[in-house]
């Protein structure tokens, strides 16, 4: 009885420590986008569960090695225990419940990050994508809400987009669209609004951004660790990525897909402005639109 109580106590202590470490030891970079805190929730949970399992198993293993080590001169065998069905059922059921819980929880997180929202690009629909598209594109295209947005649509004739983390609702139409072209070994950002071309991404804290990304040559990937977001940029498959930056500052944009010898150097910055200074940046860099 006392042993059982001790065991229960030790288990509780382990779980409490695991949760405390998971939620208090921060291994992640600065939080700078709306979905980063959501991501961090998931990370903390997984980190806690991971610590509990790993430390628990380590303790059991080291304890057995110590407690059941063979003494000098001992030639005997251990107990002839070949199995124990109830025990085995327990340690099948517990991991099953844990992974099910993790799976459902991460589904919820993914939905909150906008991963499950059917994607939402005005231009593709206007170009009639749903009529002639096939495969994945068709499935997504048929979910697109129609929304008039002529100034973008004109430049986007016939283009189909694959959704990365696609945008959530945009009732006020205040999303900032940016075209991203990735090539060996640089990102180029183009702002339809103001016809600005830039090697750095400039965005405004609090304003949703939609990147429409295309690769010229090989596969690249757009990654901002502080946003906890990554999306491959795939030649032949223009892709969308939406996010809302929250914390002003300068963060790295890193290419995360091997793209050739200078892959490691394929880095640039995203500058998150506060709304006023972003407006200033836009005004300073605005180019006259070239009439088609």
């Amino acid at each position: 009885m006392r042993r059982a109580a001790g065991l229960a106590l030790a288990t509780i202590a382990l779980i409490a420590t695991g949760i405390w470490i998971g939620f208090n030891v921060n291994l992640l970079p600065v939080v700078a986008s709306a979905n980063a805190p959501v991501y961090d929730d998931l990370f903390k949970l997984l980190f806690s569960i991971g610590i509990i399992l790993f430390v628990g198993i380590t303790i059991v293993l080291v304890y057995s090695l110590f407690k059941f080590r063979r003494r000098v001169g001992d030639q005997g065998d251990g107990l002839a225990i070949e199995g124990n069905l109830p025990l085995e059922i327990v340690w099948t059921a517990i991991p099953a419940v844990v992974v099910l819980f993790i799976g459902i929880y991460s589904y919820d997180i993914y939905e909150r990050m906008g991963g499950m929202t059917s994607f939402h690009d005005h231009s593709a629909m206007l170009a009639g994508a749903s009529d002639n598209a096939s495969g994945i594109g068709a499935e997504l295209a048929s979910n697109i809400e129609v929304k008039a947005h002529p100034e973008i649509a004109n430049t986007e004739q016939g283009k189909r987009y694959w959704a990365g983390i696609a945008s959530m609702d945009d009732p006020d139409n205040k999303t900032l669209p940016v075209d991203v072209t990735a090539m060996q070994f640089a990102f180029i950002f183009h702002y339809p609004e103001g016809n600005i071309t830039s090697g750095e991404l400039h965005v405004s804290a609090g304003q949703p951004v939609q990147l429409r990304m295309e690769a010229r040559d090989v596969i690249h990937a757009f990654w901002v660790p502080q946003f906890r977001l990554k999306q491959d940029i795939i030649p032949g498959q223009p892709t969308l990525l939406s996010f809302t930056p929250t914390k002003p500052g300068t963060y790295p944009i890193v290419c995360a897909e091997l793209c050739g010898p200078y892959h490691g150097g394929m880095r640039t910055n995203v500058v998150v402005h506060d709304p006023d200074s972003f407006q200033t940046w836009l005004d300073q860099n605005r180019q006259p639109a070239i009439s088609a």
Partner: protein
Amino acid sequence: MTIANPNDFNEPLQPSGWLRYFSFSLDHKVIGIQYLVCGFIFYLIGGALAGVIRVELASPISDFVSRDTYNEVLTLHGTIMIFLWIVPVVNGGFGNYLIPFYVGARDMAFPRLNAVAFWMIPPAGMLLISSYFLAGAAAQSGWTAYPPLSLTTPAAGQVVWILSVLLLGGSSIFGAINFIATVLKLRRPGLKLMQLPMYCWAMLGTSILAVLSTPVLAGTLILLSFDIIAHTGFFNPTLGGNVVVYQHLFWFYSHPAVYIMVLPAFGLVSEILPVHARKPLFGYVTMVYSIMAIVFLGLIVWAHHMFTSGTPPWMRLFFTIATSFIAVPTGIKFFNWLATLWGGRIAINSAMLFACAFILNFVFGGITGVALAQVPFDIHVHDTYFVVGHFHYIVYGGTVFVIFSSLYHWYPKFTGRLLNEDLGRLHFLLTFIGFNLCFLPQHWLGLNGMPRRVAEYDPAFTTLNQISSVGALLMAISTLPLLINVVVTAFKGEIAGDNPWNALTPEWLTSSPPPVENWPGEAPLVKEPYGYGHTEPALAQEATP
């Protein structure tokens, strides 16, 4: 089916002594050793390449080798470690040596095919490495060879890489067919499937995976070579090809491939733990079912490598759930191993130290694996050093640790001599510390912004990269006691006797090293390979007719 005839081995033309190992020997034990030694040589080469990587990454700028060379080194390192070290050694090496003993046969089902499968490996390996010197440039697109990058890097090197991987894949398929036939058809009369040592089940499962998935890789790489040589457009987006299709096909093989690398290691550990803990393997039946569950689930999780590619949301969700569930049968195996140790009389020797460290390392890698299976988690860390950390905990901390454990365990069987324990413990200590120092910090690097496959990085990451490089140096040093031990013991080691561990599995119920025909008389019928606690080895032997 023609059953191997023991008289085949007495063919007068077979050389004897050490020359056997340089012959087209049909003896499964010779072939097993050939696989092991050949694999180890490639391990040293792959390790040297890893050294180049870690020296380059000891500083944040690209200053040690040129950027092209770095990518060649990286590609060769991955390809060699997977296709020329891990897969051949845990399958062909230990499999060929042990499986005929375990089923009570005198050889594999198809001895000639077996020899062919082995002899495809050295030329394929040399071909791969020679591309660096002869073809002008080796492949530079990583072991994954994603198009369009693999279509635009120097073509000769990439084509030679494809050729070499095709040969190695062919060898793996031949080996797998042989294992399936041997386990299912060559069992000694009276021996039931559910009495086989666990490694047989592991090899059966692995071989099913290899036979189902390797041809897909072969087909994919052949199409890729058409794109390179004949400018077809299967995977070339400028010709209407689809690069994501390549990824699906590639991972349809390459996720199962990770189980082809680890299931045999699970099997080997299941043999080693009961012997040194003097206890039966806990939960034999659930172990068998979990192997088969892993085989099945292993075939339907491949797209977890593609969460940031253009995959639709429902597909991401499906692969998250399927991948997470692999943790269940895997977990069962680990709990069963712990239960095997519990209440035993555990001998803490080098074999056991490596086996127990394997448990810790793999649990760690499994936990990061389940995290990676969650789409939202993976979106941040995909293609970063976090993933590099994950799979090295699995492949090195898991499989390579088991290979070392197996070496200490079976070396007396191979040679009749015991490896030196002091050197063994030194080897263990250096490997364990070096390994963790090398790969643990990489998780933090990935989380904080260091992508994988880069020759240069943000200077903020310098310290941890240097720690990682020091770890790699320790790992390099750790091979010295191993090499010395293996070589010196072969000539001067302590004589082991036939069964130094008092083990019950059939390979120990004969002399060490065993005679060509495995047992002098009829093969013993071992119905309880894990009967510790109630069976004496001598009794098991006597019980056989």
